């Protein structure tokens, strides 16, 4: 609580001093995403001030989306990078450079080979027993996950992927540069879903929080279903923008 500072001799309202010191601590990195703030009662006791004053300070910060209250748990810092992108460029994380001045880190957490998965095999038009590589990875920006991906690569289009795959590979580079496929288009389906405990853990959000779920089929110029990707974006921290024109 050392980041809180109250000077009762100043003309600045005390609630403003509290909200300002929390804002400063967030901006300077002293308080990070998901850090728990002291309870309103604890702040009242420490500074011998009224409950209303602390409540006003916290409510101002809640309205500014800097903190949030979780019923029965407490008040948490909620500021985190919001990944904002034009909708049809949502794969910008996969491009060679990214527009935002943020460094993205790729972390592969599972690499496997399977011979069946009901949904993915239907999407990829694969028969049971055809082999398919599966990669589960997290893309982080400033330590926080912006995307969890499960990528299915049919072995017939990506032979020896186990030898060729590197954690830092961008998807399009892998498909087009390493494997020389020509992409025709991506077919994407966007839907909302609630996070399971595993997804929440990997995305650093709470269980049941909203996820922007995007399923992508990457299709080659030969109409081959090259790969299938399940993308899980943390809903609160992802915005897709679209300009829609009149019919």
């Amino acid at each position: 609580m050392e980041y809180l500072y109250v000077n009762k001799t100043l003309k600045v309202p005390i609630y403003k001093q509290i909200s300002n010191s929390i804002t400063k601590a967030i901006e300077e990195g002293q308080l990070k995403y998901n850090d728990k703030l002291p309870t309103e009662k604890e702040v009242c006791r420490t500074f011998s001030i009224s409950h209303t004053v602390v409540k006003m300070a916290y409510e101002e910060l809640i309205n500014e989306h800097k903190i949030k209250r979780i019923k029965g748990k407490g008040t948490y810092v909620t500021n985190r990078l919001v990944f904002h992108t034009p909708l049809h460029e949502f794969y910008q994380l996969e491009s060679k450079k990214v527009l935002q001045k943020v460094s993205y880190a790729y972390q592969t957490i599972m690499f496997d080979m399977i011979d069946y998965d009901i949904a993915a095999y239907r999407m990829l038009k694969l028969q049971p027993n055809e082999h398919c590589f599966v990669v589960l990875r997290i893309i982080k920006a400033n330590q926080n996950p912006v995307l969890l991906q499960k990528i299915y690569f049919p072995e017939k289009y990506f032979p020896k992927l186990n030898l060729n795959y590197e954690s830092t590979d961008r998807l399009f580079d892998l498909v087009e540069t390493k494997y020389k496929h020509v992409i025709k288009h991506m077919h994407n389906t966007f839907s909302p879903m609630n996070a399971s405990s595993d997804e929440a853990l990997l995305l650093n959000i709470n269980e049941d929080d909203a996820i922007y779920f995007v399923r992508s089929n990457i299709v080659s110029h030969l109409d081959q279903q090259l790969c299938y990707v399940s993308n899980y974006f943390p809903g609160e921290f992802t915005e897709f923008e679209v300009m829609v024109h009149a019919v």
Partner: protein
Amino acid sequence: MRSNLIEAISIDRRSAVSFTEQIKESIKALILDQTFYYQAVLPNPAHLAKHLHIETKEVQSAYDELVDVRYIKKRSNDDYEVAYFELTNYFFYRNVAIYDAIIALGMTPSIQCLEKKVVKLDNQQLLAMGFKSGEKLLYINRIYKGNDVPIIILENYLPLSVFEDMDKRFIGTEPLNAYMQKEYGIYAKLSNRVTKAVNLTSSLALLLGERKHAASIQSTNKVYDQHDRLIDYGQSHTTSSYYFQALVSRDEMNNYYQREK
């Protein structure tokens, strides 16, 4: 129809995965790839169990789990139907009125007006929304339904300097785009939308017939007319069974790469 659906659902008896899980995943996959489309009636649990030579309770558990995640819903006569739906082109490609998108879904549209009032927001709020200082706005909050079932809830702020006397003339249940055109000669030329996935608040969940905290697509919209004026600031929330599609061609990706260089 029914016999086709039943043939499409399969299980692997050698698999270590439970029959319930297999049936759930199989139906989910068939819905996601649109083999089973919106409102298609699924085989009833007993019928499917008999077809697959397994116990009814195993099918029933799979159906219950699919109901929980809103992929399917129970009909009044103990049958189940697909609940996962798309409003054609609503969020992408073209500015299709929600009312028309519901018709395209094969349903009878209706609009329930929850609130209609003139609001005076402070200048900071008005500027943040894109309106000019001192603008008086008509606020409307409405639920769009298909066959009487809530599909989407939409709040709009409309500038009364553009829509003169609309607070007195607009009843609240008219399709908005058609009304603007007919009464004011104004049409929505461009809509800028920012979409995100959010958890529904208790009040929105109640209105949409969802559980509290269900995930929903929220869209914040700014609509411009043929004279490039901001004519509508709105925010919508869909039910959790909603999805939309976007095809992105390699050319668009190419443009993107080129712009970066």
